[in-house]
């Protein structure tokens, strides 16, 4: 994970070529000294594109998740804290949103938003990803709401916002953090899928997903593995390592796992 992050940040320094520069003599060329991972269908260096694509994936992962963590926490907290009618309405909205097939609704939203771009993917993922997180926060807050320290805070006349933010949130943060980590892995996968379908990051900006679109041809699949193995591997590795981070966080933060 750290390696991918460093590569993404230092892309201009690490990458051997510009990710959009075209090599006029090497289209779909096998790996060589000038192109360690070969070149793609318009003669661009696969390695450089791979490195730059890490930026896209991490940006999408971080920003989309940040967005929906804020929305999800706010809504989940409001539902649990106020309870009653507000809880009922907010919970049903979550149920409805969770019952849509996610990829289809994201595809639809990206199209409606106008032209596809990385920012649209982030916004759509951010706006649609919150219900499951809100549910988690709501559960946490329901448990916290009636604990003594919260009641004490309310008894001293603290405002709702203060009670929620200062007293309750810090105690509900651990599972949110874990969920956010897993959410980031998921966001990277969704971005890859969207870009593969042509609805995500637009060319010539490289993304692991749109690099994979070349792999639709049988000849490429069978005889030009350098076009699709590296981006596929990067998606696998990044999602796997983020999930490991999530697992680690959960082990460290979840008191029920401690003996």
């Amino acid at each position, binding site marked *: 994970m750290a390696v991918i992050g460093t590569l993404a940040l230092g892309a201009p320094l690490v990458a051997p070529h510009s990710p959009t520069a075209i090599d006029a003599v090497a289209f779909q060329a096998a790996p060589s000294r000038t192109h360690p991972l070969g070149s793609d269908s318009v003669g661009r260096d696969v390695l450089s594109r791979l490195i730059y694509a890490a930026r896209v994936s991490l940006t999408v992962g971080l920003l989309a998740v940040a967005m929906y963590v804020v929305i999800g926490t706010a809504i989940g907290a409001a539902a649990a804290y106020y309870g009653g009618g507000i809880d009922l309405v907010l919970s049903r909205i979550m149920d409805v949103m969770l019952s849509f097939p996610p990829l289809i609704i994201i595809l639809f939203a990206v199209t409606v938003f106008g*032209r596809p771009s990385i920012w649209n993917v982030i916004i759509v993922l951010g706006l649609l990803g919150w219900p499951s997180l809100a549910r988690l926060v709501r559960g946490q807050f329901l448990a916290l709401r009636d604990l003594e320290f919260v009641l004490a805070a309310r008894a001293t006349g603290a405002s709702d916002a203060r009670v929620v933010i200062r007293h309750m949130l810090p105690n509900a943060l651990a599972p949110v953090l874990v969920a956010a980590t897993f959410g980031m892995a998921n966001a990277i996968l969704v971005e890859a899928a969207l870009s593969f379908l042509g609805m995500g990051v637009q060319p010539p900006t490289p993304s692991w997903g749109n690099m994979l679109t070349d792999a639709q041809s049988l000849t490429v699949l069978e005889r030009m593995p350098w076009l699709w193995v590296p981006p596929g591997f990067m998606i696998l590795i990044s999602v796997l390592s983020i999930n490991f981070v999530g697992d680690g966080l959960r082990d460290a933060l979840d008191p029920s796992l401690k003996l």
Partner: protein
Amino acid sequence: MIKHRWLAGLAAILAAALVLPVGAVGGPRSQLVVVSGMWSPPNNFSPINTDSSYGYYCVRFMFQGMLEARLADNQLRFFPALASRWEAGADRQTYRFTIHPRAAWHDGRPVTAEDVEFTVLTISDPKTETNRGAELATVAGLTVGGKRVAGEPLGLRILGPKSFEVRTKAPVDPLVFFERFGAGVYILPKHILGSVPPDQLARHPFFQAPTVGNGPYKFVQYRTDQYVEFVANDNYHNGPPNVRRVFVRIIPPTTMLAQLERQELDITAGFGIGTVLIEDWERVKAMPHMRAVSFPGPGYQFMVFNFTRPYLEDKRVRRAIAHAINRPLMVSQLFRGEGVIAEGPIPPTNPYFNKNVKPWAYDQARARALLQEAGWDANRTIVLRVPTGNIARERSADIIRENLVAVGIKAEIQKTDFPTHLAALTGKNYDLGLIGWGGATDPDVSSQFRTGGQYNFGGHTLPRMDQLLDDGVKSADPARRRQIYNQFQEMFADELPYVVLYYENGRTALARRMSGVLYGVSGLYDFQTYDWVAGTQ
């Protein structure tokens, strides 16, 4: 007794297995079955209104016009279809056709001059939805769009049950007339459709299952998005077809290779609707049971400029962009040499091609100089719109953008599906746009380059170009027309309403067991399908 019944049942099943054609699902194991493959499904089978080459590829097995036109050795040649004789009058204004005495509909009724009249009346009715209007543009009594003018008599006269005469508004080049009216107007059955109001014709069920045609093959069935099945018309007047059954399968381009390898496909449907992907080309060439056929394509890809943007109206900017784009790279690398750099809308294989037009060289320094001269704003970002679907075209956009950036033009690619793309071009919501054009044999390109033409996507107005195009349509003298279109091509290269990018070769796979298949510049393989012969593999 029970045992016997069981045996009889088994025997029946075995017999049925023997009788069922092996190719019913599509394997080309029989000499009598041929399987063709194309990328997308037809939207309907209307001989006057199917909206794509996919549809017309299917239509032409079942319906014919008077003639078949074919470009061979730079010469337009005509072959009999429904007509057995055709002649142009000395005035180049009257054209006579005689329908083959045995030409008949699939239900046995003869094809008559009344069917022809009905077809012309239907197409020219303003209420009919059709894309065949342009084929009738020269006929007397009709507009340039092929629609009837109130009060003017139609230039078609029935001479007998099987013969008729067409009059044109003015003298025209007979080649143009025979290509448009002779080969481009497929005849409709009057006894089936005669009572349908023209405005309801487009939705008539007949066009989903046209069981009564006049061509060498009869419609059997269309399994939506899977295949179209045809069976030979034994009563076909030019001789019954050799191949009994033709299946046209709908196969996405990326899976075509696997089907060719498994010998499940005999023919790919040809230019633009079944072209073999460039990645797969070498492998098709290496297949022992297939012939890989490559031929110069009639269609070209181009980049259109939005003339409503003041900064693209400057000729110097358009020239700079033409110099900036590395077209040699597209042909040599993107198509591995299977293509030709294009300079104008009339292809080098066309008899009217002007070979004296100087090409726009790839010259980045010149491009930069021209941009400076025109005072190009380096901070301006322009939008290059690209439709998805044609993979090579999508890749060419990446090259174009890189080339533009290199000379100091900030460009952004915007990819959308084809209908959205077309809407953006028509709505002038773009700076540069990629699109392709099929290209007919006749050099008249008014619909694209005349002021207000239906396909004038850039919205340009060039009065002298309009004049040349009008003269070209009106002139009946081939030598004079050549002169006019030479001038048009020179003017095109000077004004650059488009940058024409390349003519991609048609790359088609054809089973070695097949013979009698005509292919060439039109590349659709649907000429004289009754001559197709399929041997054993």
